[in-house]
């Protein structure tokens, strides 16, 4: 859309997001360290996938990038402009090029509105064009997401299937010509055939409009399908970040290895992970995360050093970084 290849479209620098939990009587009960010191970049036209379990902070990270709410500390640069320093109208204008698509399309569409009004709303909110121009834009984006405006324009959300409603949500996001779309579990509630249609739609839009995506999901295969690079989050921190191919083929972090082994294969002949290899227990509370490496309480390779020293994200392969004192030796990761 703009800028050359070397300037990131979006860059997060040491983003921290915390929430205070109140106990009985409103006393401070603790601080949820939802996102702790996360740095990442999204290049123009690139898709960055984020995977992690419930509570890993992936949705909170996305919202922090959008400044909703603003992160506790750190910087979020959109084409070089720090969003954390912007307020009011300036922030709204900057944020216009980042749009979000959520998991439940029916939850993000007002049931009483018609499709064409739903898609026009963001244009009105930003005071874009005349009514005729806006209506033309609505027809254009509905066409783009594969919905015939003359058929679906007058419908209301309840007259749509889940897949169609998600297409409307995507059309809404596209109406303002964004450079980046943040998808938070955007296809997770769809049936597999419809999901494949929407995934292909995302890919087509990427090619046609040069869009960038931040694609958040808990399904590893899904994330790989659309991503150039993938970030693995655990308890508010990045565990691993690398090119999709390399990260799935040669995972470096024991957590990534465990996640990959948990994926059921649609091939009954595929070797099954032995029970002792599967990761056990639940993630610890983000209110009182473990010292040192946050994954150490569930890690099969944890040693003393892991409890004392926080592992920094360091680059081991080409663009492939891991936050682990004892990264998985690549041969053993594959030798199962």
């Amino acid at each position: 859309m703009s800028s050359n290849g070397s300037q990131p479209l979006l860059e997060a620098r040491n983003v921290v997001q915390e929430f205070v939990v109140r106990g009985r009587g409103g006393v401070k009960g603790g601080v949820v360290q939802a996102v702790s010191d996360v740095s990442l970049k999204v290049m123009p036209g690139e898709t960055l996938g984020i995977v992690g379990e419930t509570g890993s902070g992936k949705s909170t990270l996305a919202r922090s990038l959008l400044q909703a709410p603003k992160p506790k500390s750190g910087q979020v640069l959109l084409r070089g402009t720090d969003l954390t320093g912007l307020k009011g109208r300036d922030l709204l204008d900057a944020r216009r090029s980042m749009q979000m698509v959520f998991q439940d399309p029916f939850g993000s569409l007002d049931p009483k509105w018609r499709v064409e009004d739903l898609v026009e709303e963001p244009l009105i909110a930003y005071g874009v064009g005349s009514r005729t121009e806006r209506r033309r834009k609505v027809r254009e984006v509905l066409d783009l997401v594969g919905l015939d405006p003359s058929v679906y324009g007058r419908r209301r959300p309840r007259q749509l299937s889940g897949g169609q409603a998600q297409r409307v949500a995507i059309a809404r996001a596209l109406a303002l010509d964004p450079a980046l779309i943040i998808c938070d579990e955007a296809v997770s509630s769809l049936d597999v055939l419809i999901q494949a249609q929407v995934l292909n739609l995302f890919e087509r839009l990427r090619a046609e409009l040069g869009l960038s995506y931040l694609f958040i999901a808990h399904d590893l295969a899904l994330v790989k399908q659309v991503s150039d690079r993938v970030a693995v989050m655990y308890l508010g921190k990045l565990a691993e970040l690398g090119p999709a191919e390399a990260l799935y083929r040669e995972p470096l972090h024991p957590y990534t290895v465990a996640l990959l082994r948990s994926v059921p294969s649609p091939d009954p002949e595929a070797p099954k992970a032995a029970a002792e290899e599967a990761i056990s227990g639940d993630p610890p509370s983000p209110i009182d995360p473990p010292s040192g490496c946050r994954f150490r309480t569930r890690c099969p390779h944890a040693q003393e050093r892991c409890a004392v020293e926080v592992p920094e994200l360091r680059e081991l392969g080409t663009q492939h970084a891991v936050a682990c004192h004892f990264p998985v030796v690549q041969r053993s990761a594959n030798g199962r």
Partner: protein
Amino acid sequence: MELGVTDHTASVETEPQAGDRAPGAPLLELRDVRVAFRHGGRRLVAVDGLSYTVAPGRTLALIGESGSGKTVSSRAVLGLLPPTATVSGSIRFEGEELVGLSERQMRRHRGASIAMVFQDPTRSLNPTMRIGAQITEAIRVHQKLDGKAAKARAIELLKLVRLPAAEQRFVEYPHQLSGGMRQRVVIAIALAASPKLLIADEATTALDVTTQAQIMELLRDLQRKLGMAMVMISHDLGLAASFADEVVVMYAGRAVEQAPTRTLFANVRMPYTKALLEAIPRIERPPHQPLPVVPGRPPDLAALPAGCPFAPRCPSARDLCRESAPPFGEGEPGHRWACWYPCGSDGAAPA
């Protein structure tokens, strides 16, 4: 901690037990089951002629998209359908016909010899009751135990489902537990009467992959220990491939392909099953490859097309498919499909 399979038999009413029946007899047998709903003056056939059997200790997976009839058919087994539904055909459990049983008669089975686990553990648990109270309640519905014995049994069950710190969790509320722990509690409650059949309706869909792997492993382990059969309802063919002995693929209320798991995945015949398999993103595949998709969406059950219900979306449909519905026949030993032009003759079945 080990639970005996026969624990519950003394407490259940004096019905013929599995031991009285011929060995190898199916535990659950559905024959030509049809479920119709009255809906705004229209008749809607949600399940049309479904037949399958489940042997003791075995796992059957019902696979399909939303509205394919997989959940409705399982609710019919438990008599959990609304009054607008009519069930016909035959559902036999241990030889006894369940279709047409009164609510009182049905209750003898429901939760006792047949139990069900649903997708969302939050909605299956009462948020205002402690975990312990919910599980002892389930135990005392089926067994005449005093409070102390019921509590001991409850803790035994919570340990069986590997809930960490079972004694402490006993006095906690559902909101204090993680999603995975809540689903373990729901499973413990389902196991309260040592059921012979567990129906798991998308029991792991709402959970993370790591938790899903743990819960499926737990269920498999419990099955081995307790000799329990399972009907697993899922939209995930990957899960079925890993855990089921037999798979039934449903579309628009009908079974369209059915076979032992290995046979099915080695030799997919029905284009719908093939489409489902190919549409799943796979971790082995490189990024950005377009997924093979079929257009459209499942038909409206109240306005089914003539012929094969999948024909409007099927890449290999011909005139015959749009004119008459293919029979659901046994094309190969143990492998049934409903298709006039099955795939695979060219050996193109995906692995």
